[in-house]
């Protein structure tokens, strides 16, 4: 039952990721990505990570992609149009690279994980113990936690400065 849900949600996520790649209109790309990320959040819940699932929806689908949408709508970014002098070599090289990489990647991953010693599986109710997760953040990973907040501050200031209009001399 969990496997079926995971597979369906995962398939949804992958499908809409491909839809995102195929869409010409940037706003529609972003929206298909919203659906994809939502599917991923369901996958995370199936993998006993409900906190990360909800963080994914709040931060990724609900904030980052909204930011993308704002930028696209306010700048009125146009659709991707047919190029006047296309360079087919780009597409050929790109596709070949992807296919080669896919073969190697999937081949490696198909064999992975077989040597993990059998653990007591992450029981979903135990993994829903968010205070235990929180304790990790504030003990082992405290420095990283605080550093990330400084990083976010730097990013906010940087984004603000970069996006300012140039002052006419």
């Amino acid at each position, binding site marked *: 039952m969990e496997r079926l849900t995971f*597979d369906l949600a995962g398939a949804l*996520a992958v499908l809409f990721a491909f839809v995102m790649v195929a869409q010409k209109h940037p706003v529609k790309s972003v929206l298909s990505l919203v659906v994809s990320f939502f599917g991923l959040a369901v996958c*995370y819940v*199936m993998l006993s990570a409900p906190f990360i699932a909800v963080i994914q929806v709040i*931060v990724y689908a609900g904030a980052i992609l909204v930011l993308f949408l704002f930028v696209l709508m306010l700048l009125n970014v146009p659709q991707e149009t047919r190029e006047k002098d296309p360079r087919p070599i780009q597409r050929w090289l790109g596709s070949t690279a992807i296919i080669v990489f896919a073969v190697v990647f999937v081949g490696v991953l198909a064999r992975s994980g077989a040597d993990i010693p059998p653990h007591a599986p992450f029981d979903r109710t135990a993994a829903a113990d968010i205070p235990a997760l929180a304790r990790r953040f504030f003990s082992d990973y405290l420095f990283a936690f605080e550093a990330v907040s400084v990083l976010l501050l730097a990013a906010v200031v940087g984004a*603000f400065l970069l996006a300012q209009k140039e002052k006419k001399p």
Partner: protein
Amino acid sequence: MIGGVPLFDVLMVSAALFLAGLSGALLRRTAIAIFLAVEVMMNAANLALIGYGAALGTYEGQVLVFFVIAIAAAEAAVGLAVFVSLFRHTETIDVNKINLLKW
């Protein structure tokens, strides 16, 4: 097996997502689309991290993914600011045309 979900499934979904992101990054010509494809690749990595964390029975996977999401947010903000500033300058979003540094 993580509460009913075999690790193989997790890795295959992660691989498929990564390939979707990779093809987007290599085959699209719009800066925003490339950026979105990179976000998809990061999510594929997140899924693999959570999968392994759950398979190994630790919280490390979730902790790492939390940080990755936070950093992705920072990166998206800065990247979009760069995009906005670029778009204002060049009035085009085709990455083939943004070639001022070419010699």
